[in-house]
């Protein structure tokens, strides 16, 4: 095989909370490892703090003449056009997690599934509680969050489980702690908490511990942070399960993109990484002690 | 007598402009040394050099026969040289006592000893003949009171040389008299006093020697013996100054243009009523704090007030200065630095600010017309700016006053209210301003002059209303126009006794 020079640009959100932190970590690790595996491959990882800056970063990456782009868009709607512009230059496009509005742009789509994330969580609540009061923590107002919450509520329909309160806690531990304290003051009986994110779940747990409330049966987080998976594995009563949403999907995407250039197998298509329920039984498969997330 | 502080061939330039040239001054212990000169002559600059605020471009200073270089005003103060600035330099958000002791607080167990500082401040203020509360914030004080606080501060620093830069410009004669008592006491203690004033009678009364500056150069250095104010004025201005006040223009009509009835400004003025005639120069006298400023600020909508105002017979009410100006009334604030001029902006911007509409052509301000207006203002008001593009804050104090006058006159008012028109203005310029005021009256405009200088009120005004404690105490006119009559109305007692009260002997 002759030596090819290939540059892959990777554009991802900045590490502004646990999950995106995990994405950045996995992107970096994958970059290092891929550059070792394929001589001649250069991987450039760029992070951006918001949608507009990500569009800027895409401009700047194309200025460096990349052959392929792996992008985890901040927001599907906002980044469809900017990614299309990159595609027009003949760049190979891999989209991760959040699908673009126009599916014809992407060559590879490594999909996370946010509606499924909400559905799995909702189904778990309905199955395990049968009936009762649930409080919900929302993330940052985004489409991701909206899809998750809408489908969570849909999955509860028809069961006896009721959402008695919803507030934004910005995927942030401190905000979740604050909101949970207030929920505890406000609602005398809460049966379970859907924290919708492991970072928020941690704040919720501290607030419950401080409030010494016995009525809350469990807290359901999400994303598969290693500490939480460990608790599931160890059989923590408050954390009986978690919903996976692995930040490592960025590494998968980078791997298949590199393979597109360095192996003969064509890699186009969609790879769906569905949200899975992590329980005591399968927790081992989701536990990566070395990941920062 | 040995010289205490000696300045030898001092020159000072700001950039390429030389404002002092080869000036020498010899200051002896136990003397009061007056420095006089026109506005912009360089007096304040010389003071700032002597007190370490500025360093000379050329020349040397000698203290006790040893050459010195001051690292700054703090260094100079440490060596016993303090300056009472011409402009008020106090932190407005601090109280009087806090200002007086700023940078050298009295301490007890490591904490500031507010009580001791308050008492010491109260004592020195009492010595100055004022009962200012040491706990009041400086922002709530009138300018005169602020000046007294500045003086108090200087007196509480251990000192061998005290320089007063126009201390009495904002004081009434009574406060001034207590200051003179203090100055005499300082002299008796062997302190050297530098004294700047445009009130030449004061200089005659208090000084031992006089140094005259003109255009940054030393013109004369004389003993006070045999040097009369008239001669001082001649030395300063370079021409004869025998006639200070113009002829009072004959009030052309009995037509009343402004009637004020039962006007009150909460906390300051109660139930003031008066009338102003066309072509009249009406004086407002009174002690500091009598409420004259507040009365007119209230009338012009610059602070809340109630009462009826009739302009040429029709009742009016001004929400702000803009409305008053539209009606042809302007007010020139006594606080030219705080309320009169934008110190950080150039002369042109300042000049046209109040009458900017006059310079708008189409939608934009016509700079050329502004420049032309500045040129004529510099000419008409004799503003001594070394450069046309300098900032208002770089003008000497008297020239700022002239600029403020020029600025307000651009609005072409029918009624002009001037608060302390000649504060800090040299005698030559004073004469110009008086002539100017008289001209206004001759043109059929009406002028209200608020002044603490009784001579000025007497020499200039047709009638003088005197205020006391927020009320109009009475009117003096024509043959009754005398200092004693004004002082009597202002204080309720006759002049000598008032001076005694002020000095704390009553």
């Amino acid at each position, binding site marked *: 095989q002759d030596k090819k020079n290939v540059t892959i640009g990777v554009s991802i959100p*900045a590490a502004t909370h646990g999950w995106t932190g995990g994405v*950045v970590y996995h992107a*970096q690790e994958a970059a290092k490892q891929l550059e070792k595996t394929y001589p001649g491959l250069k991987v450039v990882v760029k*992070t951006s*703090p*918001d*949608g*507009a*800056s990500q569009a*800027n*970063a895409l*401009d*700047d*990456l194309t*200025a*460096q*003449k990349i052959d392929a782009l792996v992008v985890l868009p901040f*927001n*599907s*709607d*906002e980044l*469809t*056009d900017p990614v299309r512009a990159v595609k027009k230059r003949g760049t190979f496009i891999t989209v991760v997690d959040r699908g673009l509005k126009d599916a014809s742009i992407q060559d590879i789509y490594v999909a996370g599934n946010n509606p499924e994330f909400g559905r799995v969580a909702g189904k778990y609540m309905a199955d395990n509680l049968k009936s009762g009061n649930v409080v919900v923590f929302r993330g*940052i*107002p*985004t*489409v991701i*969050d*909206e899809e998750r*919450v809408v489908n969570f509520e849909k999955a509860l329909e028809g069961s006896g489980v009721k959402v008695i309160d919803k507030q934004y806690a910005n995927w942030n531990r401190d905000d979740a702690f604050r909101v949970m304290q207030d929920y505890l003051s406000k609602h005398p009986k809460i049966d379970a908490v859907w924290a919708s994110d492991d970072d928020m779940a941690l704040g919720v747990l501290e607030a419950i511990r401080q409030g010494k409330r016995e009525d809350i049966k469990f807290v359901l987080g999400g994303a598969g942070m290693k500490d939480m998976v460990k608790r599931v594995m160890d059989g923590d009563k408050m954390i009986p399960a978690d919903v996976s949403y692995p930040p490592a999907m960025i590494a998968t995407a980078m791997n298949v993109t590199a393979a597109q250039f360095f192996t003969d197998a064509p890699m186009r298509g969609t790879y769906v990484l569905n949200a899975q329920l992590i329980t005591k039984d399968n927790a081992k498969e989701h536990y990566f002690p070395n990941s920062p997330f | 007598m040995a010289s205490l502080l000696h300045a030898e061939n001092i020159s000072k330039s700001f*950039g*390429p*402009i030389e404002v002092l040239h080869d000036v020498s001054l010899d200051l002896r212990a136990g003397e009061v040394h007056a420095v006089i000169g026109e506005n912009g002559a360089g007096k304040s600059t010389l003071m700032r050099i002597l007190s370490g605020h500025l360093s000379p471009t050329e020349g040397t200073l000698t203290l006790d026969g040893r050459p010195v270089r001051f690292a700054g005003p703090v260094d100079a103060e440490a060596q016993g040289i303090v300056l009472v600035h011409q402009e008020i330099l106090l932190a407005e958000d601090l109280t009087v006592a806090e200002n007086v002791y700023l940078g050298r607080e009295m301490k007890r167990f490591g904490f500031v000893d507010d009580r001791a500082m308050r008492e010491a401040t109260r004592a020195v203020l009492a010595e100055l003949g004022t009962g200012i509360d040491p706990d009041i914030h400086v922002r709530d004080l009138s300018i005169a009171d602020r000046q007294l606080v500045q003086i108090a501060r200087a007196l509480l620093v251990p000192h061998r040389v005290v320089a007063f830069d126009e201390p009495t410009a904002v004081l009434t004669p009574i406060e001034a008299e207590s200051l003179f008592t203090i100055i005499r006491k300082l002299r008796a203690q062997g302190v050297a006093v530098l004294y700047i004033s445009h009130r030449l009678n004061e200089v005659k009364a208090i000084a031992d020697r006089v140094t005259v500056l003109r255009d940054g150069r030393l013109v004369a250095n004389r003993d006070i013996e045999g040097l009369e104010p008239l001669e001082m004025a001649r030395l300063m201005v370079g021409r004869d100054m025998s006639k200070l006040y113009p002829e009072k223009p004959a009030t052309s009509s009995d037509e009343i243009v402004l009637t004020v009835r039962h006007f009150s400004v909460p906390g300051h003025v109660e139930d003031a009523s008066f009338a102003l005639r066309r072509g009249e120069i009406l004086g407002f006298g009174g002690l500091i704090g009598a409420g004259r400023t507040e009365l007119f600020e209230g009338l012009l909508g*610059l602070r809340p007030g109630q009462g009826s105002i009739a302009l040429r017979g029709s009742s009016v009410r001004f929400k*702000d*200065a803009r409305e008053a100006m539209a009606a042809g009334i302007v*007010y020139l*604030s006594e606080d030219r630095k705080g*309320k*009169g*001029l*934008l*110190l*950080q*902006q150039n002369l042109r*911007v300042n000049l046209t*600010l*109040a009458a*900017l*509409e006059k*310079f*708008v052509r189409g*939608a*934009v*301000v016509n700079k050329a017309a502004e420049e032309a207006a500045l040129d004529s203002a510099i000419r008409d008001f004799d503003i*001594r700016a*070394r*450069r*046309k*593009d300098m900032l208002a804050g770089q003008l000497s104090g008297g020239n700022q006053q002239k600029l403020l006058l020029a600025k307000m006159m651009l609005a072409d008012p029918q009624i002009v209210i001037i608060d302390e028109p000649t504060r800090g203005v040299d005698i030559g310029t004073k004469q110009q301003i008086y002539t100017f005021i008289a001209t206004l009256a001759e043109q059929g405009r009406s002028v209200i002059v608020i002044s603490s200088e009784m001579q000025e009120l007497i020499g200039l005004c047709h009638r003088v209303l005197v205020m006391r404690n927020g009320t109009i105490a009475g009117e003096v006119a024509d043959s009754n126009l005398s200092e004693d009559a004004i002082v009597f109305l202002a204080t309720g007692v006759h002049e000598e006794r008032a001076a005694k009260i002020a000095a704390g002997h009553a």
Partner: protein
Amino acid sequence: MTETALRSTSQPRRFSLDMRALSPFIALIVLMIAGALINPDFLTASNLLNVVTRSAFIAIIAVGATFVISGGGLDLSVGSMAALIAGAMILILNRAGGADASTLLLGMGAALVLGALCGLANGLIVTFGRIEPFIVTLGTMGIFRSLVIWLAAGGTITLRNADLRELYRPAYFGTVAGIPVPILVFLAAAAIGAILLYKTSFGRHVIAIGSNEDVARYSGVPIWRVRTLTYVIQGICVAIAVLVYVPRLGSATPTTGLLWELQAITAVVVGGTALRGGIGRIWGTVAGAVILELVANIMVLSNFVSEFLVGAVQGAIIIIAMLVQRSLQRGR
């Protein structure tokens, strides 16, 4: 005597004044040289045009901020306001349904009106309520942001009609005589801003209020009107920025415009306008906005800074740029 002194001395002063006004541009040039050294791709026309085009949003907003700040005020709400205007404009375009120029003009007009109204609200609360502008605009920042979230029901507001999007696209991506439209818009905004601030009595009044409100009041300047107008101008500038922003991404989200207020204020200050008011430098502001975008661009183009540390290097560069400016101004 005095006259001649006037003439001969105006030269060097003029020069030192120019140094202060020039220094943002010098910082800009220094940065460009640094960028060229770091990555040869930096100096390509396409990269530079990209960067300047991108700086358009902040530059236009910052032109408005120059008015507010030089008049002694502050507006923290601009980022949220941008999101709100963008969201409302897209909703109106969606509602109108058409895909023709008149629909577009309607939407654009509505955006401008909304911008002016948002600014008016800020201005009236600041002037009539006499509250620190910091607090007022922090409050309206929360209000505007919440309204977007509410309009978007937590999600994204997207311009649905594809034809309309195509029609509108040139407003960001088009060029006139080779110059991208956003650059033209921001140059126009800056030019109009400069005329307003330097040549009209309104501009003079803004500076007067910012230098010393009392003096302005005693001089009969209509303080309330002028001050309120600065906020209205700020609102209109935000709306103009939105007009250029919407065609780029075609949508508004609850995170649109996040932290733009800090960027706009930074651009203004880097450009030489003092935060305490009384000085306004429109062209410096524009240079400041380009500097900020340039620094971000250099960060992406350089490959030796770990992405974790990009923010640190960016912060350090801005501080250093200011230090360079200061030393230029002192060492005249």
